[in-house]
C-alpha cells in the first residue's frame, strides 16, 4: 500500500512539473506580448516533451564514472532531495506521526541538499564568479529567513511547528488558515514573496551547465522545477490547508497549487526588471519587517481573541 502511495505522489509531482513548465512559459509569453509555445500538440501542450527530448540529443552525456564522487553525489542530492521533500510533505503528514509527521526531516533534507550543492558548486567555480555566487547564496538565505519568520505565525496558531500539528489545525480552519487572522494573511503574502527569493535558482543551473554538461543542467532545471513545486506545496500546506491524501481532495489540491504557482510565475515575470541589490533592499527593509510585524500582530491577536 505504501508503495502505491509513493508512486501516486511521484506521478502527481511529475505531472505538476510538466504542468508548471507549460504554465510558466505561457504566462511569461503573455506578459512579454508573445504567443509562446504553439508548435507541438494542442495549444503547444506537447512542447515540453519535445523540448526535453531534444535536450537529451543535443549534447552527449558525460560519463558518470568520470565525474568523481563529489559531483555525482551533489547531482543526485539536487535532483532527489525535492522529490524526498515532497514525499515527506504529502505522505508524512498523513501516515507518519513520528517526529511530528516528518517536519524535522523536511528541514534536514532542505539543509543537507543546500549545503552539499553549494559546497560542490563553490569548489568548482572560478574565483571571479564566486562573488556572484555568494550573492545568490545570501539572497537565498535572506529568503529562508523571511519564510521562517512568516512560518512562525501559523505555528503559533497551531501550537507547534510540525506537520502533524499543522494538519490538525487545518481541521479547525478548513482550507484557509491564511484568512484566520490578518497577521496570518500578511505572513502568507510575505512568505509567497520570499519564495521568489529562494526559488530563483536559475544562476546555479548556469553554473552547472558551465562546469558539468548541458544534459545535466537540464536535469537540474527539472530539479529547480521540482523545488518550486515542493516548496510551494509546503507554503500551501502551511497557509492554505493540507493535502489530505485522498483522491477526492485532489482537485482542490491541484487548484490551490495552480493558483499559488500562478502567483509565483506572476511575481517572477514582474520582478526581473529590478536589480539584485534593489530586490535585496526590499527584502531587508520591507519583507523582513513585515514578517516580524505579522508575528507580533499574531501574538496580540491570540491574546485578545483566545
Amino acid at each position: 500500500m505504501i508503495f502505491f502511495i509513493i508512486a501516486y505522489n511521484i506521478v502527481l509531482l511529475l505531472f505538476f512539473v510538466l504542468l508548471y513548465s507549460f504554465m510558466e512559459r505561457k504566462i511569461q509569453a503573455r506578459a512579454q506580448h508573445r504567443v509562446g509555445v504553439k508548435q507541438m500538440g494542442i495549444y503547444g501542450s506537447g512542447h515540453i516533451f519535445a523540448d526535453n527530448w531534444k535536450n537529451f540529443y543535443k549534447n552527449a552525456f558525460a560519463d558518470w564514472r568520470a565525474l568523481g564522487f563529489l559531483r555525482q553525489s551533489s547531482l543526485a542530492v539536487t535532483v532527489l532531495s525535492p522529490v524526498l521533500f515532497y514525499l515527506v510533505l504529502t505522505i508524512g503528514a498523513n501516515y507518519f506521526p513520528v517526529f511530528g509527521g516528518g517536519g524535522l526531516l523536511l528541514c534536514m533534507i532542505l539543509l543537507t541538499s543546500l549545503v552539499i550543492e553549494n559546497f560542490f558548486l563553490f569548489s568548482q567555480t572560478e574565483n571571479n564568479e564566486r562573488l556572484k555566487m555568494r550573492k545568490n547564496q545570501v539572497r537565498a538565505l535572506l529568503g529562508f529567513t523571511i519564510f521562517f519568520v512568516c512560518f512562525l505565525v501559523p505555528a503559533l496558531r497551531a501550537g507547534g511547528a510540525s506537520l502533524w500539528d499543522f494538519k490538525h489545525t487545518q481541521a479547525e480552519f478548513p482550507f484557509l488558515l491564511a484568512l484566520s487572522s490578518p497577521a496570518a494573511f500578511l505572513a502568507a503574502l510575505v512568505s509567497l514573496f520570499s519564495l521568489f527569493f529562494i526559488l530563483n535558482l536559475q544562476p546555479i543551473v548556469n553554473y552547472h551547465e558551465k562546469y558539468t554538461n548541458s544534459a545535466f543542467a537540464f536535469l537540474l532545471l527539472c530539479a529547480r522545477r521540482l523545488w518550486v513545486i515542493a516548496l510551494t506545496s509546503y507554503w500551501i500546506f502551511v497557509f492554505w490547508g493540507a493535502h489530505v491524501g485522498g483522491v477526492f481532495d485532489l482537485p482542490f489540491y491541484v487548484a490551490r497549487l495552480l493558483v499559488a504557482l500562478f502567483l509565483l510565475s506572476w511575481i517572477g515575470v514582474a520582478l526581473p526588471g529590478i536589480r539584485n541589490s534593489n530586490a535585496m533592499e526590499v527584502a531587508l527593509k520591507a519583507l523582513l519587517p513585515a514578517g516580524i510585524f505579522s508575528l507580533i500582530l499574531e501574538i496580540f491577536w491570540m491574546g485578545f481573541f483566545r
Partner: protein
Amino acid sequence: MNFNELVKMIFRSLKMSARYIFGSHVRYRVSIEQYPDIVSGKTDHDLFPKTKGFLTNDLSRCTGCGECITACPVSALKMDKEILSDGTTKVNQFDIHLGRCYLCSACVDICPVSSIDYTKAFELAVEKPNDLILSLTGAERNAKAGKFSTKDSVRIRTYEVRR
C-alpha cells in the same frame, strides 16, 4: 534609488504585467500612412536624385530584346513575348520579382532603349509573397502598375494597440 520609489516600482511592475496577463487579446488599429506625406508635405521630388525605388518597365518602349533577362543575376525578370507578322516583337507580359531584386542596376545599364528604370516608390510591405511580383501587361499596364506607382503609393500598416 529611493526606497519608496522602489516599492512603487514593484507594484507598478506587478500591475503592468497583470494588465498584460489578464488583459484581453491584442487589439489592432489600422492606420494609413500616405506618401506624399500629408503632415510634412514632402513628395517624391524631395528625395535624393539617385534614390532607387523598385524597378519598373515601360512596355510602350520595350523592344523585347531580352538583354535584361540574361543580365539579371537573380532571375528576377520574366518575359512573355510574341513575334508579329510584320517582324516586330510584342511583349505580352513582363514580370518583375521585387522580392528577389537587389537593385544591382545590371538590367538598367544594359537596356538599349532605357525602358527599365527605377521609380521613386520604395514602400514594398505586402501581406502575401506573391504580391511582390509586379506583373506588367500591355493592356492593363497602368492598372497593375498603379498599385506600386509613385503618385499614390499608399501603405496600410497595422499597429498593435493595448487597451
